[in-house]
């Protein structure tokens, strides 16, 4: 029961002293005289009244012991003066004490108000930590999880910091530190002004003027009187000097200010704690995110590099053969199959490798479930077919089976015969009625005839053969009796049918699959290995390029659009409109903004430079990841190499089917990575191109519809039918409007044409029926950047020029690729217009290939072709044209070499270089074409500008709203605080400030 029981006083019965009624008379002489005197006087005054005497009470439980040796302690409290770090350290230390307080209180019931109160502090912290942990548990990503704890920390920090902030001006103005702590005689840390009714004035006795607590001796060496500190504060507070008890008056004033300060604290804490916490957490977000992102990328990129090294080791080289042994690969990659999965798998495989139908189905289900969505499971069947017994049910031809066969023959006979009526039985031959069943020899002979005597397991064909001939064989001895005996024939037919049926049933019960345990384990292990390796690569993708919360690309997507928005200079009002209106109105606003920027040369330059700076940053981050994963033709990345290794491993172990599946499995990843990169790139550079188009719109339009003269010339041309009834200026204005629209809004060609018809309502045919216009439109919109724009982005900083030039090249190539994707429509158009075939992608690219011959065009052609060729790395191992050869890395390298030769002009130096065959080789490579089937254009391209900006505006607007609220609360609270602090310590109804003038003899408060 703890110590308390021992402390509970034990009461012993008191001997009830029999008090005499006269006891008062007997006691103390002096008392007696006084009492008697009183008594007589009373008796004299009130003679008629009865007199009662008062008997003094005796305590029921008188204290037996008188406390000895205890005297009032000399107060030993002292002020605490510590800096912010010491204060933090002592706070941390105090939680240890609080835990002790809790133990004593909760388990022993010991404590005091002070210690019990401190348990609350501890429990609030513990509870908040619990809440943070629980909330972090609901989050899926490390940053979100971490922010729960950051939020918790900032919350408590701002809770602690706000009174300190309030205390600074109060102390500066009045000399009163509302946060002043002291240690009381029991070493308990308390606030000096905690209880206004308890003022520990003593602790100010030996305090230096600057507030430093001193020992008595030290103090007296320096000063000749106590409370020098209070005197100084009294001066600061303007307490008159010549009054009585001046230090007490000072202390009272200090009390007033402390009460006011603490009330202000309580009024504002509820607002300021969340506000400061929110601001601090917001400020910490970026550094926290960046640090976390850096470490994540670092760790996963390191892991990827290690994996690549392992893969390269296993891939071997000219001297070292390639490793395709699954067990060796398992060891090399340190693959661990989860124990429960492995156990489940093993439990599904019988030791002898013989599966019943049910067992087989269960295994198949397990594998399908485990490897669902990998594409690999589809080839499991194929892989298992390496031995036919794996997918075909077998029946073992053993002695037991043979006996059962003979038994069923006899049974069939007996059943049929038993059913025959007696009169019919008489008509049947004796040998039939008394059939004794098939003997073992007959069955063996039959099997020998069917050449099944050496077979252990019957496959499906053999099963059918045996079933057929068994019934025939049984009927054979009665063949001669059957002639003319219709009854026997019928009976035998029935028996045959019964035997056939029963055999089938027997097969069903006996059927099994035979799968070598070793082989199925190999398949399982191989698939598991691929899954795990893919997962480890996925971790890298998640940290960098994947479209998932908190990846590097997601962070770019959070920040870059915001920077663009800022560069474009929308006002808050415009942002609010952008965030809420439909996309048509939003794009109108954006168009206006872009026009304004295009009209102002210096603004145009500034915006362009800012946007290209941020785009470069974001794009280069992703490009790095792509290079690490996929690599280039000259230096393939981890994912590519892994595919190569695993494909050869599958080929060696399971054959072509599995190899194809595995190759596809990795190819999908490679394609996704490439597409993601293209998508981001396109999204971020599109606004730059849009600005370029807006700036040079007149030029573009003239290139499209010609100048006024050409326009009028073309009027009769059916290709320009949409301009038939238009003047040049109207046509120009309409096309301008149209281009602005499509550049800002839609991604899809169908939207283009619809929009064109809205803008140019010349009949119903519109743009769709005019190749030249459509194609020149695409040509203009996706054209390379205007030379002025190029000059602006390139800039003058020699350090950055090459980098900027590379960026512009990428931008132009991307535009070209996008254009060719849009031009997919060509095929449809060519059908529509019959023979008139303007330009297909292939033709366009062939045009570039032709350009390689001309030195002045070779560079531009090289840029585009090599970029497209690099994308082809995803298709290695596939037939890019049906019926064609499989694309290999060597072929790609070869094509690249040709391109290099043309760009550098090397081919001219090599004697006998066959230009024609090189060009032909490129043309026939089928590499310069896009596989665009089954994919929406919007999926292959980036975000359109309106969506891009609207989404950024929505983000900015929520942030603005938050800023408005948070700063509103902050400024409001600060204003209230400032006003209150400025008016503290004033005379009022409660504090009348009436002082009594000091008498000459009056000294300081001692």
């Amino acid at each position, binding site marked *: *029961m703890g110590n*308390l*029981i021992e402390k*509970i006083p*034990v*009461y*012993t*019965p008191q001997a009830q002293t029999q008090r005499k009624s006269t006891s008062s008379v007997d006691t103390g002489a002096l008392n007696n005289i006084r009492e008697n005197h009183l008594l007589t006087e009373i008796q004299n005054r009130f003679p008629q009244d009865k007199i009662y005497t008062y008997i003094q009470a005796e305590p*029921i*439980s008188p204290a037996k012991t008188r406390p000895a040796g205890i005297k009032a302690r000399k107060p030993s409290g002292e002020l605490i003066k510590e800096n912010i770090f010491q204060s933090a350290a002592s706070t941390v230390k105090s939680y240890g004490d609080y835990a002790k*307080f*809790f133990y004593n*209180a*909760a*388990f022993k*019931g*010991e*404590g005091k*108000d002070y210690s*019990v109160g401190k*348990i609350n502090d501890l*429990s*609030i912290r*513990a*509870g908040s930590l*619990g*809440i943070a942990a*629980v909330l972090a*548990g*609901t989050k*899926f990503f490390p940053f979100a999880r971490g922010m729960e704890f950051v939020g918790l920390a900032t919350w408590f920090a701002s809770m602690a910091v706000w009174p300190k902030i309030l205390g600074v001006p109060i102390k500066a103005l009045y000399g009163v530190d509302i946060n002043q702590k002291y240690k009381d005689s029991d070493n308990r840390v308390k606030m000096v002004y*905690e*209880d*206004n*009714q308890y003022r520990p004035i003593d602790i100010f006795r030996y305090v230096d003027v600057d507030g430093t607590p001193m020992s008595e001796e030290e103090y007296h060496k320096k000063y000749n009187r106590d409370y020098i500190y209070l005197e100084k504060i009294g001066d600061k507070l303007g307490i008159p000097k010549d009054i009585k008890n001046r230090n007490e008056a000072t202390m*009272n004033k200090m009390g*007033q200010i402390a*009460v006011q300060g*603490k*009330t202000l604290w*309580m009024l504002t*804490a*509820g*607002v300021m*704690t*969340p*506000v400061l916490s*929110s601001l601090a957490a917001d400020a910490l977000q970026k550094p926290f995110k960046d640090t976390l992102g850096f470490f994540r990328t670092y760790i996963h990129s390191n892991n990827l590099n290690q994996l690549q090294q392992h893969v390269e080791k296993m891939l071997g080289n000219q001297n070292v053969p390639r490793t395709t042994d699954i067990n060796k690969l398992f060891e090399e990659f340190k693959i661990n199959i989860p124990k429960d999965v492995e156990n489940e798998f093993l439990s599904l495989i019988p030791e002898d490798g013989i599966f019943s139908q049910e067992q087989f189905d269960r295994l198949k289900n397990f594998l399908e479930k485990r490897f669902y969505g990998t594409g690999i499971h589809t080839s499991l069947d194929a892989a298992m077919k390496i031995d036919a017994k794996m997918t075909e049910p077998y029946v073992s031809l053993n002695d037991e089976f043979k006996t059962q066969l003979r038994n069923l023959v006899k049974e069939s006979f007996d059943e049929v015969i038993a059913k025959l009526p007696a009169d019919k039985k008489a008509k049947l031959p004796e040998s039939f009625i008394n059939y004794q069943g098939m003997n073992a020899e007959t069955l063996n002979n039959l099997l020998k005839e069917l050449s099944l005597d050496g077979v252990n397991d019957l496959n499906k064909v053999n099963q059918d053969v045996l079933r057929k001939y068994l019934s025939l064989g049984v009927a054979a001895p009665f063949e001669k009796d059957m002639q003319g005996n219709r009854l026997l024939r019928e009976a035998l037919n029935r028996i045959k049918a019964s035997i056939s049926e029963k055999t089938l049933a027997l097969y069903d019960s006996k059927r099994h699959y035979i799968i070598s345990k070793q082989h199925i384990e190999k398949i399982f292990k191989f698939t598991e290995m691929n899954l795990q390796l893919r997962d480890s690569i996925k971790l890298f993708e998640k940290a960098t390029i994947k479209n998932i919360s908190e990846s590097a690309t997601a962070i770019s997507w959070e920040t870059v659009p915001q920077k663009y928005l800022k560069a474009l200079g929308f006002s808050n009002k415009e942002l609010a409109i952008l965030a*809420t209106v439909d996309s048509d109105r939003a794009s109108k606003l954006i168009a206006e903004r872009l026009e304004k920027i295009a009209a102002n040369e210096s603004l145009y330059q500034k915006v362009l430079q800012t946007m290209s700076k941020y785009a470069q940053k974001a794009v280069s981050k992703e490009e790095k990841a792509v290079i690490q994963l996929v690599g280039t033709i000259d230096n393939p990345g981890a994912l590519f190499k892994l595919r190569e290794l695993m494909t050869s491993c599958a080929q060696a172990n399971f054959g072509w089917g599995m190899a194809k599946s595995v190759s596809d499995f990795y190819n999908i990843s490679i394609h996704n990575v490439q597409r993601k990169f293209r998508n981001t790139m396109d999204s971020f550079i599109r606004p730059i191109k849009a600005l370029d188009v807006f700036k040079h719109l007149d030029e573009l339009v003239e290139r499209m519809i010609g100048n006024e003269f050409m326009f009028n010339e073309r009027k009769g041309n059916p290709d320009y039918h949409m301009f038939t009834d238009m003047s040049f200026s109207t046509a120009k204005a309409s096309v301008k409007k149209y281009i602005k629209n499509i550049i800002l809004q839609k991604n899809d060609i169908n939207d283009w044409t619809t929009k064109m018809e809205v803008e140019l309502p010349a009949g119903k045919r519109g743009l769709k029926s005019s190749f030249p216009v459509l194609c020149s439109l695409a040509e203009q919109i996706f054209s390379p950047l205007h030379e002025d724009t190029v000059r602006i982005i390139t800039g003058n900083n020699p350090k950055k020029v090459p980098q900027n030039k590379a960026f512009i090249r990428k931008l132009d190539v991307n535009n070209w690729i996008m254009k060719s994707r849009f031009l997919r429509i060509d095929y449809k158009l060519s059908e529509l217009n019959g023979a008139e075939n303007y330009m297909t992608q292939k033709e366009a690219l062939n045009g570039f290939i032709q350009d390689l011959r001309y030195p002045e065009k070779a560079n531009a052609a090289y840029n585009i072709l090599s970029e497209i060729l690099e994308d082809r790395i995803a298709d290695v191992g596939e037939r890019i044209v049906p019926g064609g050869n499989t694309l290999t890395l060597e072929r790609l390298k070869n094509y690249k070499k040709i391109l290099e030769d043309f760009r550098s002009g090397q081919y001219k130096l090599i004697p006998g270089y066959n230009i024609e065959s090189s060009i032909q080789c490129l043309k026939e490579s089928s590499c310069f074409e896009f596989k665009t089937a089954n994919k929406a254009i919007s999926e292959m391209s980036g975000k359109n500008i309106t969506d891009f900006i609207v*989404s950024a505006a*929505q*983000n900015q607007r*929520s942030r603005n*709203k938050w800023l408005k*609220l*948070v700063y509103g609360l902050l400024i409001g609270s600060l204003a209230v605080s400032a006003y209150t602090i400025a008016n503290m*310590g004033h005379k*009022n*109804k*409660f504090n009348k400030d009436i002082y009594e003038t000091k008498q000459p003899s009056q000294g300081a408060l001692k």
Partner: protein
Amino acid sequence: MVTVSNFITNPTDRPAQKGNLVSTINKNHSMEKSFSAKPQKHEPIDSRKYKQDTVLKNSLPNRMWVNFIKTMDIPMIHFPRGFMGTPDYTFYEFLQTAKFPYYIGGPILAALFYAGVKKDNFKSAKAANKVAKHMALGVGFYYVGAALAKSIVNNTLKITRGIDLKHPYAKAISTSTSQTGDFKKEVEFRTLYESCEFTRTDLIFDHKGTEKNIDPEKIIKKYGVKGDVNDADQTVKPLIKKSIIMARAWQYALTAFFVTLGIGIANQQAWDVDSRIGFKTLWEQKVKNKSLPKKVRLQNLKSIANEYALQPFVKSCKQFWQGHSKASSIIGKSVILSTAAATLLAISLISTKTSARGHKLESSGTNIKQNEEVK
């Protein structure tokens, strides 16, 4: 001079009526002056409801009323007095003002958080809705959790020992301290057991309060002191102190557990079901609809409560237990289990360790009937 005729002819000068002898003495005083009586010094009327510390009735409505008054006093009395820096400002008042940030801090943080959530497009508006729902539930469940933790401990003590930590009493404030009539503080509503060092056992055992709202015999009995025992209150007082300390410690500790549990339950997907429209229609058609008979409406109310509160609650508890990942399942399970364990421990410790059974007690004399376990 005082003359008889003067005294008779001038009735207004009668001191008995006027209470002023001076005017009658000085004949030369003008009438007006003699009429102006010196203002009498009245004792201030003591309008206080509680003229001494009084134990109040410990009923729920009464406690709610007291809490209401206390809450109203925070802005009406304590804050103004604090801002004036009144010399008689007490620690009690400071603690009252400290409730203000406790109640507005959480909601303001939630509001700030919600203000920063993107709401402008359909997808983000939906997500924001979800966030808001979780936050509102979280704030609600936080306070519910805290109240639940306190009430579990309090009820344990109430059942086992007959003392209620919430038992209110009115502390009468001396009239001498209020220096002016502004923001006059007449009473501080406190609880009998708020301090373990200065527990108001005087109000419990000495029947000082005018309204006798407490039965000391019952408390003594509940503490396990049986029979006619000498100075039973002296035995019980230290045990009450022990009970208060234990109970407070466990109240604080359980609060930490229960608020964590509350927030955990509030942040499960079970609450994500977009139910506003369904709920509104059902509410308007099945419950608010007055054409339906009352019984049916009540039944409907029950089923709605079941569907929109109870079922998600149960489901969210399950989800919290299971978690969506290994870490969250560990967190969920450990929070639920540790809350249950801590609650049981608290109840068992409080109900076993505060009893007087096993203490040596002495009978008051005549009727020697000892406590059960006297050794």
